[in-house]
Each structure stands twice: as C-alpha cells, then as structure tokens.
C-alpha cells in the first residue's frame, strides 16, 4: 500500500478541520488540536496509480500571520493550503505559509483551496486576485466544507500530484 503524508495549512478558522473531519476517518478527537496542535486522520484515495492511503495532518494555526508549525511539516509529501474566501487576509497568510513550507520541505506537490464557496454574500476574493494566482500557477480550487463542493476532488487531485512526479 502506498502511504503519503499531507498537511493541511492555512490561517485560523479557514475550515481546515471542517474539510478533514467530515470527509476523512479518524479515531482522535478534535481536542488534540488544541492540546498538541495537530490531529491526524486517514483517507483512502483511488489515484491514477492505484489505491493510496493519505495520512492527513491537520495543523492548528498558531496565529493569523502566516506562522506555521514546522515540526509537523517534516516528511510531508504534499500540502493542502486553505484560504477562507470570505476573508481576503487569509490568502496572503496562506501564500506566506506556503513559502515557509517550501523552505523547509522543498518543492512538494500542493493544492490551494479557497473554502467557504457557499458564502457568496461575504465573498472577498476578487477575480483580479484569482487571475494573479493563476498566473503564478497556484490554480486554486473553490471548495465548501459545508456542502461538500470539490472536497473529494481536492483530495484526489493532491494524491494524483504526489504519485505522478512532474
């Protein structure tokens, strides 16, 4: 069985835990998040290279300014970077975290999720920002942990990226 470790990174309250806990299997309670700052779940994903076991590390953001817990990132095979579409500032924080992660673990596959797509009324991410993101090859995906939009797809995409090195 192929096993990969991925980390969920992003600012506080962007929906990392929600994205994981509704779609992924775990035996640990969310209490671990506040106590040791990480909760690990697992998910079997069918990839282009057969079944892959994802060990999903949901990291509790320490604060809102792009700080991340580097210890838990170690050995990660992929990153899911989560942004809250209703809070513009979480985007720049996310890009900062991505940069830090790159310095630590090198060029590993990543996926940028812009979450809370269901909250159209409060949306703050402009088409202009999206254009810049696309130019920089971030190719973000809109998700919603609330209605499940693209959640499964996101896990499959990051898995495919990890098993087929570009």
């Amino acid at each position, binding site marked *: 069985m192929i*096993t990969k*470790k991925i980390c969920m990174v992003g600012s506080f309250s962007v929906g990392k835990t929600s994205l994981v806990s509704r779609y992924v299997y775990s*035996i640990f309670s969310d209490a671990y998040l506040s106590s040791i700052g990480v909760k690990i779940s697992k998910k079997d994903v069918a990839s282009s290279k057969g079944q892959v076991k994802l060990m999903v590390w949901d990291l509790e953001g320490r604060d809102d300014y792009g700080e991340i817990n580097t*210890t838990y990132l170690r*050995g990660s*095979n992929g990153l899911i970077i989560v942004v809250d579409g209703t809070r513009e500032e979480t985007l720049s924080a996310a890009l900062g975290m991505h940069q830090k992660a790159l310095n630590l673990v090198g060029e590993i596959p990543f996926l940028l999720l812009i979450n809370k797509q269901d909250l159209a009324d409060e949306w703050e991410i402009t088409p202009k920002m999206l254009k810049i993101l696309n130019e920089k090859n971030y190719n973000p995906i809109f998700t919603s942990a609330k209605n499940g939009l693209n959640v499964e797809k996101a896990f499959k995409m990051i898995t495919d990226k990890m098993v087929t090195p570009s």
Partner: protein
Amino acid sequence: MSENKFNDFPEEGAALPPEGEAPAPLSGEEWERLRSLLLGREIAAIRALRERLDNHDLHARELSEVVAEAILLRTQKDQTIEKVLQPTVEEIFQNNLRRNPHQVVNHLFPLMGPAIRRSITETFRSMMQSFSRTLEMSFSWRGLQWRLEAMRTGRSFSDIVMIHTLLYRVEQVFLIHTETGIVLDYAENEGIKSQDADLVSAMLTAVQDFVKDCFAGGGQAAALESLQMGDLTILVERTPQAYIACVVRGTPPADFAGQINTSLELIILECAEEFKQFAADGDSGPFKKIRRHLLDCLDARYIEEKRKAPFFIRYLPAALLLFLVIAFGGLKYQQYKYESMVEELGRQPGVVITAAEPSLLGSWRLSCLRDDLAVDPSNFLVEAGMAQNRFHIDVYSYISLDGDIVKRRVEEAIKPPPGVRMSFSDEHVLRLSGDAPLGWIIATREKALTTPGVKDVDTSLLKDPLAQELNQLMARIDGTIIYFPLNKDLPETESAPKLIEAVDNIVALEKLAANMGMGITVTIYGHADAIGNEKYNYDLSQARAKTVAAMLYARGSSVPISTYGMGADFAAYEDGKPIADPGSRKIILKVHLARLAAMEQWNP
C-alpha cells in the same frame, strides 16, 4: 628415465661423445648454430615448461582451476577429504572462538537468537494457558481472591489472572518511518484490541515531535524514549530512518530496549534499499519481509507459579472457609426459605396470618384466618417444601372480601352455564356476558347481588336469544286496538283479522314464555264513546272487553286475562259536549310477563 631426459640434456657448451666416425669435429660455435637450427623451437618450449614447473604462482593458478572439480570427484569416491580436513577446520574454529568470541556470537545471534526467543515465548504462552485452566477449576485461596476480584470488577477471570501473573507483555510493535510518521510494518500479540495502526503511529510521531519541541528545543539527544500511562508503557528505539515503538503492558526487563535495538538494526541493515525506495514512492509493502523482526519483539513473561507448600495446606483455609460458608449459608438459607414460605402463605387470597413465630430450632408456630374457599394452609406449606413437623398451625374460618375469593364465591353461587363469561372487577362488580335464558339471568342477578363481597352486577351484555323473539311478539300484541260499532259489544267485522292475529300471537307468546320458564298475563281495557249515560257506558265497555277475552279462550289460550271497563273516561268531546266518535268504541290489549314457579328449573 625418460621423464628425466630434460634434466639430462647437456649443458650449453658441453661436448657430445663422438659417434662412429665423425667427418670432422665441429667447433663450439658451429655446434651451437647447428643445435639452434635443429632444436630451436623445442628449446623455447622446454624453457617455457621449465619456467612453469618452477613458478609457484602459476601452479596455484592452474590448480585453482580444477581444485573444486577434483574435490568433488574425490568426495564422490570416498570420504578421505572430509577426514583429512576435519581436524584442521575444528582447530580453526576453536582458535577463532578463543581469540574473538564476540565476533562469532555476533554472527550466530541473528540466526539463533530469534529462534530461541520465539520458542521460549511459545513455551511460556502454552504454559500460561494450562496454568490458567488449572486455576480456573481450583479453589486455592488466591484463586478465590482473584475470582472475587473478577466478579467485583466485571473483568474475565483469565484477565485477572493475567494481571497478577504478568511481568510484562509486548502488545503491539510499530515500525515507523521517522520522518513522515507513516507505519512501515506492524505486529500485535493475539487478543489485543488495537486501534488503527496508521493513525496511532502517526499520532505517536506527532506526540514525540511535540514533546521534543516543547521541552528540548528540537535536540536529538532529548528524544522521547518512553511514554507511560498506567501499566502501559510505550518504548521507543530510534534510528534516523525508522523507529520501533513497542506498547508494553507491565514492566519489561532492563535489557528489553537492547532487544528492540537489535531488531531495529537488523531491519535497517536488511532494508537499506527499501528505505530509499520508500522515500521515492511511499510504498510500505516491501517492509512486510521484516515482520519476523517485529514478531521477535512481541515478548511476554509471566510470574512462575511457586509450588512449595503441600497441596492440602495450601487449600486448607479455602476448604475450611468453604465449609463454614456452606454450613452457615445452609442454615441461613433454610431460615430464609421458611420465612419466605410463610410470607407467601400470607399472600394467598383468603388467608390472613395472625401470628407467626419461628422457634430457635427453626420450627414455626402459626395461626391464621382462612376463608372456606382459600387454599388449605397446611397443604400449602407442605407443598412449598416445609416439612410437616416443622410447623404447627391453628386455622380460624372467616369470610374474606378479597377479590379473588369473592370471585370464586360468586362463581360457585351462580354456576354460569356454558356460553356465559364472567369477569370480576377490582371494584367488585360482576360482569356477565354471552347467551343465557332470561329466567336464569333474572335469578342470577338476585343471587349474585346477595353474595358477600359483590357490590354490583352488570348483565347488560347477557342476551337471551329467545327473549328477543319474546320481546318482538309482546311488542306486536301490546297496544292492539279492536274497534266496535255504535252501541255493540261485538267487534266490527273489518277488525276480525286483526283480532285473530292478536289472539294467535298471544297463544304463541304463551308457549314461548312457558319454554323459558315464564308465564304471561293479558289485560284487556274496554272503552265506549261519551254518548249515553255513564253506567251504560261502563257496562258497554266492560262487555266489549269480556267479549274479546272469551274469544281468546275460545281460540285455545289459557292465559289469565283481566278485563277492565273504562267507560267513557277516555272518550272524545267536542266543545265540552259528548260526540258519537267511532275512535272511542274499542278495546286495547296489553300483555305482561310473569315469573312462574317453572322457572325454578334453572336454579334447583
């Protein structure tokens, strides 16, 4: 010797003996030339041969080409080689062992160690099982204690035995990739209820990272070596590539970490390739091959049973205790049993215990009130299992108003025929339903109402099938009116059929009622109009009633008939003056049911 001819070959420059008559002796130089002409090639060959014979290296090289085949050929023929070599080999081995024992052990250990350890583990395991079985059936003092503990804590007896006899047991072994925390391989002892190994090992890695972060600033030296919770310990042995985490119940021996380390090092050695590959593709499959090293870590030790004291001494206290428990318990139990029997007797309907005293020796003096319909107290106690000589009972009669007894009493009083259902409510109301003759219904009502304890009787659901017919007939007869001509006491001819019908109905009713144990009586009221004087009208109305009565008798009726002349009391007037009204010249029929002596047949 021909083989030696090369050696006999004359040295360079030596003269040959002349052969016969030689033409002229050759000079040394000429001779030399001739020789090289004749033998030039052979000389080179001979030189090469000689060189080969002298050169040891060449020998060895050549021999090496064939030595294996030679040994093989010889071994196939006989055992000489083995015999020749044996002493040498033995000597080498002994020397080696004397000089450097560690090296030899190091080489042998990976082969033998696991095998030995596994066989020890197996032995212990099977020993433990039989030990536990023996205990399970024995009554040793400790066995009893453990049994009590098992009952108290709700755990299985073998669990308790394990807790007390277990020194330690390795329940789970994880081989975990240090960097990612991904489990590479995993083994667990039988009967372990384990959580998801993937998640546990990842979390274990996270916890270690966390501890390292918090307390040691990330230094390798301060890596977590063990975690403890209750009697569970997680022991960790690490290398940069992978670490082994063992979940151990109890206290493992001091050298246990060393054992894990041995396994871990063997794994690292064996799997150098696999680790590289894993970093590339994340496939943990290939690590299955080192499962045996993990299994080696699944060790367990139990406290050995000491069998010092002789059998009967070890079991004497338990046996004594058991005896006392049984004896005392037996007495107590019997007392308790008798007590509950007496209580049970008191609960029987229609029985009231007025006194109950157990004597010291366990027999009882009782006195009680008893309804005639209640159980016989003596029989009851004997049947419940109380010996006849264990009690004396005085019984006094009384009438119980207990629901059950009243029900039995009223049942006996009314003896409901088949087709009648009875129920007796908590409010002591008797309800009867079903089909029954009317006579029985009436009689039963009376009887039931006079039975002690019955408050009311409801017979509304009791139907007499005949009674319905009876009612219909009566309704047809009742109120029949026959009209008379002016000043005549013979009915109008038109009303003859009506009169005949009424008479026939009365005859039928009479028969039906007789069948039901009832009788009927008929009353005929005669009327006249208001014309004429009062006396005359009375007589006329009386005569009319009598005429009809006579007609009834004439048609075979034997019912008692009463006739009344009502005169013009009900006649019509107009403006206060009497009129000649045809509607007032008539008789009216009435029937009544009456109970006859014959109905007594329902209730002799």
